[in-house]
């Protein structure tokens, strides 16, 4: 992965000094609450219900074992001994003290980490597929360009105070796993007819209160122009995006208001001036950064391993884990492994300090000292030898990291919700836990098969409920907590937004509602259909009929 040189290190160190002084001025009363807010937000510090929340950047989800170990230390020392991986691949601390944050940042800087631009109205952490670099369906590894874009976007002076936050995702696979269509800018890398690296650029996607999938603004962009083209887009947005209404301030609203054709025209007019200016990426820079993402020094091993096969055949628990948590790999004899942060009955994405240290050790022992976080809120060891899988599984299992539920109903994506977030209409974590307990039977879970369930505590959609096959949204009715259910959302190349099935439910009813949706699927499915396929074929009606049959609920 990318290693800092003195220039990178200096910028992060200078940031610590700058933020230390900003905090000092705030505590000394030289900065008002309102003046400090944008400053702390640009550094990932929210003030929440219980305490501040600090969001630490994990650029495109890549972590070294040393970094994760340090995160374990930090969450032990400054927090309650755990952290939370978010749907944007970052790590959040729920209980740090505002006065401690400069120290936390200084600690992070010792392992080449920071919290720069993890919130606030600026260009945020750039996200990608958690299997980047190892996925068999990968055409281009976009990490080098993602890192170049990370550097370019860090303290970009022109885009320091945008109308609203700005999220960029990159992907270089046939099957999009990075949600490029749900971002302000999505970049899909491919090889063009001349075998050159090119980018298809999407703009104006986003979930939140007005969910919109992005539109293609440019089918073919040569990689050299990634920065200047983004500058053109973001300049048009910076100048003309709405600033009078926070709910209408995302770029998606501007693109909609202008129409994609007019928006493209304005972007092209800007780009005519910016194209080939100094921020154009050079071959040399790409090569310098790309070498940090060279393939691991894989051993030359067989595509099959007798010991592994035997263990799968004789140990059903191991076999179940392999089926769900082990993923194909470019390199023969290697696999990528997901360590589930979704054990039943626990907040999705939460991880204790001890588990962080364990995972760091596992990464050192089995996966070249690196790992990734996923937007599904799990951790991934990307380069594990087949022959090591059994030993890895035993250790992961002993530490509560081997729930064989990846991609299944209980691999729930969930925002912090009312337990932590002051914007919430309703709690989301207890709903996730209740559903996990309702479906705590592995055979049944495997029979239900692949399905995505997403929960957000309010329409800000941090839990991506719009793209969940089943989406659950917390709503407020006369001051009490209710849940609206939608089905048929999907991420990926054929992304879609879910349809609400009807009036909302109380918390107690939710596990039963999910149960009923599953019953319809089990009854109606064809042998090869996943839940989402059945929903797409049949539409919402039969699901709705069964859920609302007899036991009508007050809306």
């Amino acid at each position, binding site marked *: 992965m990318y290693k800092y*040189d003195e*220039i990178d290190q*200096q*910028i992060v160190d*200078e*940031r610590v000094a*700058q933020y230390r002084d*900003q905090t000092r001025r705030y505590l000394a009363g030289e900065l008002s609450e309102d*003046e400090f807010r*944008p*400053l702390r937000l640009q550094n990932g510090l929210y003030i929440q219900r219980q305490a501040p929340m600090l969001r630490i950047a994990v650029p495109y989800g890549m972590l070294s074992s040393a970094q994760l170990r340090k995160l374990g230390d930090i969450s032990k020392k400054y927090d309650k001994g755990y952290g939370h991986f978010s749907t944007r691949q970052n790590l959040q601390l729920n209980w740090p003290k505002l006065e401690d944050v400069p120290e936390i940042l200084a600690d992070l800087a010792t392992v080449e980490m920071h919290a720069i631009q993890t919130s606030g*109205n600026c260009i945020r952490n750039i996200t990608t597929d958690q299997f980047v670099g190892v996925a068999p369906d990968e055409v281009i590894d976009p990490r080098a360009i993602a890192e170049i874009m990370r*550097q*370019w*976007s*860090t*303290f*970009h*002076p*022109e*885009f*320091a*105070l*945008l*109308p609203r936050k700005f999220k960029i995702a990159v992907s270089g696979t046939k099957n999009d796993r990075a949600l490029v269509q749900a971002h302000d800018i999505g970049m899909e890398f491919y090889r063009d007819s001349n075998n050159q690296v090119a980018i298809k650029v999407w703009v104006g996607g986003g979930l939140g209160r007005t969910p919109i999938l992005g539109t293609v603004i440019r089918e073919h962009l040569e990689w050299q122009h990634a*920065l200047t083209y983004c500058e053109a887009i973001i*300049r048009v947005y*910076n*100048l*003309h995006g*709405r*600033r*009078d*209404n926070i709910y209408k301030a995302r770029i998606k609203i*501007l693109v909609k*208001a*202008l129409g994609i054709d*007019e928006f493209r025209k304005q972007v092209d007019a800007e780009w005519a*001036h910016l194209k080939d*200016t*100094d*921020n154009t990426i*050079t071959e*040399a*820079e790409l*090569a*310098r950064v790309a*070498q940090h993402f060279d393939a691991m020094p894989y051993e030359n091993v067989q595509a099959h391993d007798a010991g592994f096969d035997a263990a799968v055949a004789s140990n059903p628990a191991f076999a179940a884990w392999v089926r769900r948590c082990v993923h194909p790999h470019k390199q023969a004899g290697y696999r990528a492994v997901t360590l589930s942060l979704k054990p039943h009955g626990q907040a999705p994405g939460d991880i204790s300090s001890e588990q962080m240290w364990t995972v760091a050790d596992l990464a050192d022992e089995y996966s070249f000292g690196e790992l990734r976080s996923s937007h599904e809120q799990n951790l991934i060891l990307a380069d594990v030898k087949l022959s090591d899988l059994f030993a890895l599984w035993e250790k992961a299992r002993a530490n509560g990291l081997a729930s064989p539920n990846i991609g299944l109903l209980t691999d729930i994506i969930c925002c912090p919700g009312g337990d932590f977030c002051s914007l919430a209409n309703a709690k989301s974590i207890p709903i996730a836990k209740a559903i996990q307990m309702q479906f705590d039977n592995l055979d049944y879970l495997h029979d239900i098969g692949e399905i995505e369930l997403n929960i957000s505590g309010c329409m800000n959609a941090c839990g991506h409920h719009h793209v969940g096959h089943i989406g659950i949204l917390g709503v407020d009715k006369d001051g009490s907590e209710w849940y609206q259910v939608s089905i048929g959302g999907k991420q990926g190349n054929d992304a879609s937004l879910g349809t609400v099935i009807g009036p909302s439910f109380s918390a107690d009813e939710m596990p039963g509602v999910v149960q009923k949706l599953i019953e319809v699927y089990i009854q109606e499915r064809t042998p090869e259909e996943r839940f989402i396929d059945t929903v797409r074929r049949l539409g919402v009606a039969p699901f709705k009929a069964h859920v609302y049959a007899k036991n009508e609920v007050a809306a």
Partner: protein
Amino acid sequence: MSNLIKLNNGVASLVEDDWALVQLPATQVEERKQAGKVVLFKLTGEATVTEAQIADTVIPATGKIILPLSVFIARNSEIKDRIAQGEIGVWLATHELLENLTQQQTDLNALPIIAIFVERFADGRIFSLGNLLRTRFGFKNELRAFGDVLRDQLYFLKRSGFTSYLVRADRSAQEAIASLGDFTKPYQGAVDEPRPVFKRYNRGV
């Protein structure tokens, strides 16, 4: 003491302000909210200047003055000579269109100063405006930020081409100067240093 910071060959110091800022008189008319397409979209929520305001603006008869863009355009004939003598500057609010200025005044460098008024700290349009004035319209003279200007914008303002900063009156401009140097080696090319870090340093292969 003056709260005006000025860059001179990259060195910042507090200086006395030799320009007088001319404001529009307050308006009686209701603020008009416009919504909709293309150009109008740009004006959403911002008050429009009225004819009466322009007519009622008092233009001091002598001295170096910075006029609101709308007055500069509408009453240009009154100030022609003074423009030639280098006594007239122009200020714009962040929602105003640079094209309106450049249509009126093709040679921007006849203006010794252009100033941009930023009403709220969080309004980052000022950075794009600075950048455009420098890189697109070739403006070479003093470019000033005033309004809700606080020390944590200064670094970004400098990188966006601004060379003077009128810090909000209730804050210490002397202390704010330090923030111009928050970062020594910025990553990306911008107005003050067009080359990105990978073109300035040999960062190895």
